[in-house]
């Protein structure tokens, strides 16, 4: 309970800082500017909660604290989808007549994630074992990342397009729009609720596939739905914020060290913690940059996340908790 209160308080503080931070001071903030900051704040909250809970689901499914949404290839699939959409909107402006600009990015992100998810579910249906799913996920992740890198190299011929793709790849919620938040919010809310419902099943699944099945878990359904909700969460986060790493790794592990492995509590606390972490990181991205502009959000989460995670992992390992 104390941890829940702590992360809730951290989220409130980070949210207040996010609304107050920017080149224009709080006193001079007009309605339009406040709305933009509110959209940015909501995008951070949604993306942070989605990434953290996607991490909880993956770590629960694979029974490995180092698993993250990226091992399924879903994040890379969503990123590739968005990159294609960004290229398409610049190179084929007619595309925007068919699909409105505000919907193109989310639709392409979810499309890319759905492609990866379809491959994973096909393997899960045929083989039914988690190892095959992990192996395929890693291959898909590498494949989609390689295709993304190829797109980036092609985009370098056009300065503006290259800049857009690089900005997306580095991660950031400054480009989120009201429409993209409105599309992502219900998906994230439903996926968070559904993830919570699978919490008890994931608790039992900690005992391994055979034991869990003997205790009444439908392991195939659990794998299928866990992958589906992870895909929804990860693709929503990628659509909102691009390539943001480490949130799904750091937040669930820190929360688990204090709350234990019970997934329902873990999902609630990680959603709050992820939202607080990403909002705070976004504030740092704005405040810490010397001069105008911002540090890419993905760089902030990785710069903070990597050393923190090494310290935290060593501490927990030494204490026998990991």
């Amino acid at each position, binding site marked *: 309970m104390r941890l829940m209160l702590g992360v809730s308080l951290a989220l409130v503080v980070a949210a207040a800082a996010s609304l107050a931070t920017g080149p224009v001071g709080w006193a001079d903030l007009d309605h339009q500017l406040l709305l933009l900051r509110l959209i940015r704040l909501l995008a951070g909250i949604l993306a942070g909660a989605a990434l953290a809970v996607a991490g909880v689901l993956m770590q629960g499914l694979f029974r490995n604290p180092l698993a993250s949404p990226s091992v399924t290839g879903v994040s890379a699939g969503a990123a590739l989808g968005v990159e294609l959409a960004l290229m398409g909107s610049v190179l084929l402006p007619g595309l925007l007549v068919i699909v409105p600009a505000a919907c193109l990015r989310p639709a392409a992100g979810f499309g890319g994630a759905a492609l990866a998810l379809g491959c994973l579910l096909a393997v899960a249906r045929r083989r039914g074992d988690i190892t095959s799913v992990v192996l395929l996920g890693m291959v898909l992740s590498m494949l989609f990342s390689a295709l993304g890198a190829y797109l980036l190299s092609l985009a370098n011929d056009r300065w503006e397009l290259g800049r857009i793709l690089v900005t997306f790849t580095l991660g950031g919620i400054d480009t989120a729009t009201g429409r993209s938040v409105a599309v992502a919010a219900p998906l994230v809310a439903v996926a968070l609720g559904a993830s919570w419902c699978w919490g008890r*099943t994931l608790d039992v699944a900690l005992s391994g596939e055979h*034991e869990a*099945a*003997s205790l*009444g878990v*439908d*392991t195939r359904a659990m794998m299928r739905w866990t992958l589906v909700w992870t895909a929804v969460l990860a693709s929503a986060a990628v659509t909102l914020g691009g390539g943001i790493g480490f949130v799904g790794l750091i937040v669930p592990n820190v929360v688990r060290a204090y709350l*234990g492995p019970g997934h329902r509590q873990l999902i609630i606390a990680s959603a709050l913690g992820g939202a607080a972490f990403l909002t705070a990181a976004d504030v740092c991205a704005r405040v810490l940059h010397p001069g105008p502009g911002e540090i890419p959000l993905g760089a902030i989460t990785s710069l903070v996340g990597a050393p923190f995670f090494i310290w935290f992992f060593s501490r927990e390992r030494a204490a026998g908790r*990991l």
Partner: protein
Amino acid sequence: MTPGEAVLTVSALSVVRSGREVLHDISLSLRAGDVQVLIGPNGSGKSSLVMALCGLLPPAAGTVTVGGAAIARLSPRARARLVAYVPQRSELGSGLSVAQVVAMGRFAHDGAWGRDAAHQAAISEALLQVDALELARRPFTELSGGETQRVLIARALATRASILILDEPSSALDVAHRLGILRLLRRLAEAGKAVLVALHDLNEATQLADQVVLLRSGRILAQGSPQQVITAEHVRSAYGVTLLPGGGYGYALDGA
């Protein structure tokens, strides 16, 4: 369920794993109040049969029937309420207390939103049955081998299934803990459970079993009472060793 009533029936069961037939034409019947022991050399198919009886491996041919229904047709939850499985060792990692591990046995009874009414009582009762009530708050991964096995049996008992199937529960334990587990299994059978247990040790099988099934290369070599099955001829045929006359380790738990 009345003592002596057949609660699990296996008819002409064959199981294929990785393209290889690991069990062939297995037929047996498990009765309430009985302890049936599976013996056989390594690779004879004991663990595969245990898993098939729990519905964890699908039959390639034949059927496993529990309570009048083919186990393969039951939902995982319905199956878990009828048949409880105790693995040789658990894959559970750190962070869980004994009570949380035993509570997993109630998963098949709990609703999507809340625990069923008998949740807490079933956990306490199960821990009491294996003399592990005092372990409830201890971290599961810090238990000794004997305590771990008792807690896994408690988790199976918490399901309140009438059939208990165990895969070599005593193989990693010292003599005293092995005998403690055997005594516990006998007590559970006397309380009305149908118990089927895979064992390596022929002396333990003789001490514990009402019925013995001897497997060799995925087939039943002999089945019946311990005296009928554990004979010099069968042991030589299955294991390739000679059974010495008047064998036995000659130890027992204090007060047994």
